[in-house]
């Protein structure tokens, strides 16, 4: 007797719903076993991980703060990946958006008007789009592989930021430490509640709604899908592959740029050498975890954010090491992706001697 994976004729709709639940269950069971082996009470450990961060207003807000940039970037990336355009460089577009958006509050700190913030946000979006346009241009003009170019541009953007905050944009009163001046109040996205949740969260929500509509209800959404799944058919329909590459990069770059300037303005309030704990890369996981669907991405963003917050909670209240947290996150991702196999395949138990007489 052995297990065999058999391809389904079509996607299983039941499994599409069940697989994330199954994954969660498997994660909980494996997690409980791991915690028990570490000498922890499994129930308490799981409570700390998944429930405790949801029990206080401040940590709920922190959850939103952590999830918002992930979601904002991931919905843009979803359009890229659906259209078969491989933008791996959202981290760079995030960084460059943050830099472009910070031009005003750093270079012209006295410019404090109601226009300051909208201008900063627009410049942030433009910065991200510009950074995204480079790999798009290289791909269209020279056929350069966008995976490599977009990824390499991440490092360029990060080093550019590094140079700026150590050199020309260093805080004049900062003892030569590598940080920009703090933004004035006019340049800060205001909090939405008593904690750290700020207006940037609304951008993520709007992006999810807008992208859902665009992908489901508009011709552009159809174009994205067709060019992704059947490029030749798309060409016969008169859709341009090159225009789609540009569109996808500009859209995802712009959203990443918006996430960048929102994070800097609403959360850090200055430029520092490190402005992202890898949002642009984590967003790739979020995009696929959410199955490239805006609503799915919304949920996935919160799930991943929860695992980070839960990890910190576990360190503080259980004294678990941060490595345990990483293992736990890894298990969650593994099970989610592994269970997705069940959407396309079914598991069959076969006898060694199949009735047909064929031995495999």
């Amino acid at each position, binding site marked *: 007797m052995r297990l065999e994976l058999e391809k389904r004729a079509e996607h299983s709709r039941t499994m599409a719903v069940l697989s994330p639940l199954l994954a969660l269950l498997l994660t909980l069971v494996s997690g409980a076993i791991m915690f028990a082996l570490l000498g922890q009470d499994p129930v*308490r450990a799981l*409570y700390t991980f998944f*429930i*405790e961060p949801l*029990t*206080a*207003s*401040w*940590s709920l807000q*922190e959850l939103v*703060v*952590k999830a918002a940039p992930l979601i904002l970037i991931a919905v843009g990336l979803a359009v890229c990946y659906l259209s078969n355009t491989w933008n791996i460089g959202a981290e760079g577009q995030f960084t460059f958006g943050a830099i472009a958006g910070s031009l005003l509050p750093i270079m012209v700190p006295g410019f404090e008007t109601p226009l300051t913030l909208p201008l900063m946000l627009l410049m942030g979006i433009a910065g991200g789009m510009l950074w995204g346009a480079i790999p798009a241009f290289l791909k269209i003009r020279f056929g350069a592989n966008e995976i490599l170019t977009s990824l390499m541009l991440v490092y360029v953007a990060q080093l550019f930021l*590094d*140079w700026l905050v*150590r*050199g020309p944009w260093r805080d004049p009163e900062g*003892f*030569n*430490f*590598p*940080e920009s001046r*703090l933004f004035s109040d006019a340049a800060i996205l205001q909090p939405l*509640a*008593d904690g*750290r949740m700020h207006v940037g969260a609304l951008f993520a929500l709007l992006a999810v709604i807008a992208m859902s509509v665009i992908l489901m209800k508009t011709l552009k959404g159809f174009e994205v899908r067709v060019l992704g799944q059947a490029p030749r058919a798309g060409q016969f329909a008169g859709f341009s592959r090159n225009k789609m590459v540009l569109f996808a990069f500009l859209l995802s770059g712009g959203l990443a740029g918006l996430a960048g300037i929102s*994070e800097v303005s609403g*959360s*850090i*309030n*200055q430029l*520092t*050498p*490190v*402005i*992202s*704990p890898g949002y642009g890369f984590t967003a790739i996981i979020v995009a696929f975890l959410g199955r490239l669907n805006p609503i799915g991405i919304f949920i996935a963003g919160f799930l991943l954010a929860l695992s*980070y*917050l839960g990890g*910190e*909670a576990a*360190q*503080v*209240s259980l*004294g678990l*090491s*941060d*490595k345990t947290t990483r293992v736990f996150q890894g298990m969650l991702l593994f099970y989610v992706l592994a269970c997705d196999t069940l959407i396309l395949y079914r598991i069959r138990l076969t006898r060694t001697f199949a009735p047909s007489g064929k031995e495999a």
Partner: protein
Amino acid sequence: MRKLLSMAAAAVLSFGVVGAEAADKLKVGFIYVGPIGDYGWSYQHNQGRLAIEAAFGDKVETVYIESVSEGPDAERAIERLARDGAGLIYSTSFGFMNPTLKVAKKFPDVKFEHSTGYKRAANVSTYSARFYEGRYVIGQIAARMSKTGTAGYIGSFPIPEVIRGINAFMLGAQSVDPDFKVKIVWANSWYDPGKEADAAKALLDQGVDVLAQHTDSPAPLQVAEERGAIGFGQASDMIKFAPKGQLTAIVDDWSVYYVNRTKAVLDGTWESTDTWGGLDAEMVLMAPFTNMPEDVANAAKETVEKIRSGKLHPFTGPIYKQDGELAVADGILLDDQAMLGMNWYVKGIDDQLPQ
């Protein structure tokens, strides 16, 4: 409504979490930038945490969060400790400065200790150690031990702290050999064993025979050991990683400071201060002088003693900048302000500061 919600949440929380602390127990929180197993910066801060536990036993409880990235995550991590009932919080990296101040503003009753920063508040103290004193000592040793007359130096980031260290190392070396050379490689990381090892190999390939580092992993020292070269441990005594290669190590010892500050909170005498202690305050220690002739070790011990007693100050004029401009006049001691913001190399360093 919001208040009601958060009260309900608090009730759930206190119900859900088992073993709430007795009110008189002081909870001391730590935020580390690296893993506590780095055997460098965060490891030493964690040793300080253990010293607090050893000194006060049941009177304190310590908690920590490790590998907290400097950036948007820092504020959340610090706030979690404050929310969790910590009465004293050590945030142990420069990049936590503004997040620490933001959280401190929200929690005026919690005491904060921020390491290596320069911004203080009524409930935020700063502290650091004069590591450059140790670097002057190892500079002298390097110049005495090197056959090629060239040392390799692995820097993390070109911030004043690190530049001050390179300058002190060079001044120490020049006090022995005025023509001493130093080659500098920037790892652009505080802790990246792979990169640090690569940097060490590159430096050794370029004819360097002594390595110094301002990054936190023992990797460069391990490379030196393998290649039969010599070097200096960073932050902690790394002799077990290079029994034949380590000459000494500049050890960050936070224990005395941490125990004193924690005691001050327990006694109710804590005040916001700025502490910058060196060899004299025993915040900087030198690991045993090994793998060197006795005269070199004795000379090093003598230098340590002179710095400790105040007879010798590494940054005493005349000191010239790279381009020959006089930076510190003859017989003058460079003041702390100038040292804190140091962004120039002393004469004799060939490297260009990445600007």
